[in-house]
């Protein structure tokens, strides 16, 4: 019997056989997350029902020195939940209870497998909602959100997951259940919670999350402004921010993204638009009214040729439909595409977009741009046809060049999708050896044996307790044994 067989048996004994999968065919269901071109079949899948069961699985892994990877809904776009071929994939899909909704404390307590939108559904009868709203909110889990520090269109005003989590129970990589924070703010000691959020499953597994609930706004107003090009739309964004307005969201799409959205969902954006801006304001009615007029005027001054104002919720939903479906929509105009996620200072938007155009032209591929314009978070969609020899490589080159542009302009290699398996190789371009080494001191404190989601975030693991070496981007095959890259 191999070590893994023994581990599987131990897990079956403590969890029950229905909660442990070792059948090759069934395991295949879990071979990838939303980044489907990286695939690894895990050795074992465990489906715990409680925090104690998660702790049991992790302790068994720690005893056997077997790596483990957490998985929520598997919608991640950076391969964060890519399994380990000789490891256990711990899936939180059976942990979907909303444990408490406490509007008087503006908090909810949920299990990690709970779907993002369900928190808002549970809170809204009380006049509250859960603010972080990734476009995947109908399917992604709170545990995944915590691990990725996920954001969404409305994070411009309301912040990211990290600003909305006040308490956490997690299983540390040695199997210990740890509780930090709760319904009260500012727990004493190091901010373990702050360190854990965004750590992509490398510091342990979240088993219970206390989140902030935000009062539903009294008024929401949304406009759709059409411009001849992205420069004018970018100028309008800058003008709005410069005027001291903090909109709930400012989203932009360029001509190619609009074309795709029209083809997919017939959102009916103004014909002939080279770029559209969706601007949403929310808050107290009087405040929103005053600022909405200002924003409308600023869009006009910046060259908007048509401005539509949503008359009701149905029309607002239609404005958003085009934007929210944009990723999938490009499938209508291109057989294959890469979703990129990078950040630039908002003010650099026009020049970076021009450079993206140049890079795309040089490589003979098209790039559709969809982005959170308010906070400079770009989602370029690099379109290609895998059937055309060499095109996939040229798309990959373009996508990488866009990341280099983000770094060159003082931005980041990822704004919300995370580093995961996909971007570990870019980390040394954004951070120096000592920076990465220092981050890994934290990892060594939590996980000296490197069992929690190994190979993610950091291109080269630090040997805990030893002197740092140089960080080089290792080949994927070295970091992910058994990986198939499609």
């Amino acid at each position, binding site marked *: 019997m191999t070590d893994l067989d023994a581990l599987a048996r131990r897990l079956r004994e403590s969890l029950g056989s229905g909660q442990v999968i070792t059948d090759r065919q069934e395991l295949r269901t879990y071979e990838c997350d939303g980044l489907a071109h990286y695939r690894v079949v895990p050795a074992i899948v465990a489906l715990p029902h409680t925090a104690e069961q998660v702790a049991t699985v992790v302790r068994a892994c720690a005893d056997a020195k077997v790596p483990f990877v957490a998985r929520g809904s598997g919608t991640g776009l950076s391969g964060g939940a890519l399994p380990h071929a000789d490891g256990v994939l711990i899936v939180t899909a059976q942990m979907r209870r909303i444990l408490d909704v406490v*509007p008087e404390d503006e908090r909810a307590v949920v299990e990690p497998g709970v779907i993002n939108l369900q928190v808002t559904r549970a809170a809204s009868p009380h006049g509250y909602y859960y603010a972080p709203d990734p476009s995947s909110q109908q399917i992604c889990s709170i545990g995944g959100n915590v691990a990725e520090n996920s954001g969404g269109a409305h994070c411009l005003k309301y912040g990211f997951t990290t600003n909305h989590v006040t308490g956490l129970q997690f299983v540390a990589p040695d199997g210990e259940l740890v509780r930090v924070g709760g*319904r*009260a703010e500012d727990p004493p000691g190091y901010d373990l919670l702050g360190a854990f959020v965004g750590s992509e499953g490398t510091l342990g597994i979240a088993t219970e999350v206390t989140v902030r609930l935000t009062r539903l706004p009294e008024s929401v107003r949304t406009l759709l402004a059409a411009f001849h090009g992205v420069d004018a739309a970018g100028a309008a964004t800058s003008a709005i921010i410069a005027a001291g307005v903090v909109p709930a969201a400012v989203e932009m799409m360029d001509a190619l993204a609009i074309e795709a959205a029209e083809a997919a969902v017939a959102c009916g954006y103004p014909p002939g638009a080279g770029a559209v801006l969706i601007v949403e304001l929310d808050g*107290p009615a009087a405040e929103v009214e*005053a600022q909405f007029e200002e924003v409308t005027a600023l869009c006009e001054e910046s060259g908007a040729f048509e401005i539509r104002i949503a008359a009701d919720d149905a029309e607002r939903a239609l404005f958003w439909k085009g934007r929210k479906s944009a990723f999938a929509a490009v499938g209508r105009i291109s057989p294959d595409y890469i979703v990129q996620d990078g950040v630039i200072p908002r*003010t650099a938007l026009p020049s970076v977009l021009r450079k993206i155009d140049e890079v795309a032209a040089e490589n003979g591929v098209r790039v559709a741009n969809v982005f959170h314009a308010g906070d400079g978070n770009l989602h370029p969609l690099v379109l290609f046809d895998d059937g055309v020899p060499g095109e996939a490589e040229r798309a990959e080159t373009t996508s990488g060049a866009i990341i280099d542009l983000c770094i060159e302009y003082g931005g980041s290699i990822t704004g919300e999708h995370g580093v995961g398996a996909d971007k570990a190789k870019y980390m040394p371009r954004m951070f120096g050896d000592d920076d990465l080494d220092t*981050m890994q001191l934290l990892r060594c404190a939590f996980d000296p044996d490197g069992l929690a989601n190994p190979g993610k975030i950091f291109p080269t693991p630090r040997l805990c307790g030893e002197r740092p070496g140089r960080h080089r981007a290792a080949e994927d095959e070295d970091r992910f044994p058994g990986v198939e890259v499609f």
Partner: protein
Amino acid sequence: MGALDELTRPAADGDHVGGVPARLVASPGSTAEAAALIAAARELTVVIRGAGTKVHWGPPPRALDLIIDTRRLAGIVEHAAGDLITVVRAGTPLADLSLGDQQLVLDGPAGATVGGTVAANTSGPLRLRYGTVRDLLIGITVVRPDGKVARSGGKVVKNVAGYDLGKLFTGSYGTLGLITECAFRLHPVAAARVYVRAAAPASVVAAVLSAQVVPSAIELDSATGEVAVLLEGTPAGVRDRASVVEKLIGGELSEQAPAWWGVPPWHPDGIGMKLSVPKSRVPALAESGFPVRGSAGTGVLYAAPRDITEVERLRALCVRNAGHAVVLTAPPPVRDILDMWGPVPGLALMRRIKDQFDPGRRFAPGRFVGGI
């Protein structure tokens, strides 16, 4: 030790921390100078000092050779107004930041430097709307206890590349290394602001929170029985919301904050405590008979207990109400027999973090939770 002689000077009379005198003082003027200093000081125990407003908070250090004074690490490195961010050196007094029609919303106790505010994680009334250091800090540069310089985060608000070391250094009380530079998210200064001040019970706080008035701060001072609400925004919007709040809590509109607004309730030589409870439990603290003051809208209040018995009773009260309580400052006789930090969940992991960053336990030894 040649390098060390050039980089330090002998300590003077005032150069002590909680009564423990230092031997040497150094005032590096850049991250590079600080790194050279710390690399040369690898055998020494170190406490970092900004403006000194909170340097005596917490237990005294177990040992102290060198005080690193951050005040020459001063000035704004960058203010990108269009991007609503700034990068500042850690020794810069918060009061010196002039950012035009933008602001760094950190309104903790007066006189503090940027680095001291981050390291002690202090906050003020505006935390209700804008959050605290952890919500505003987007990038950090630190010098590790071994002299290595490390950066995390960056200059853009939205960024999930790598671990967020800024969170770890926030509230770390100088135990993990020296903070030399911080990047922050800024907010526009509101066009209009007004306070609604009333003599009212703590129970009105819940009504203000659930009304549609988006308060920037809800402060309470149980000694005077006053509640004050700050509203910010457009002139028309503020007028509108102020009248709603007036109806809810009574009282009157004022351009001026009450005298106690954002002022710690303790005497400089007395005991100062920070209490934190879920929002709905604020009335339980306010009506406990102990005078409390602070951010009623977030459940973070401050108290000035007179003796250890009162400290223990306040702490027990917070724990009973699903919260916690920390003694920030206390005179030596009290401090020396008191567990200032109280029970700390996650302590074992915290010790392991300290061991990784500062294996020699030289930075602010003994000053933090669990004797870290």
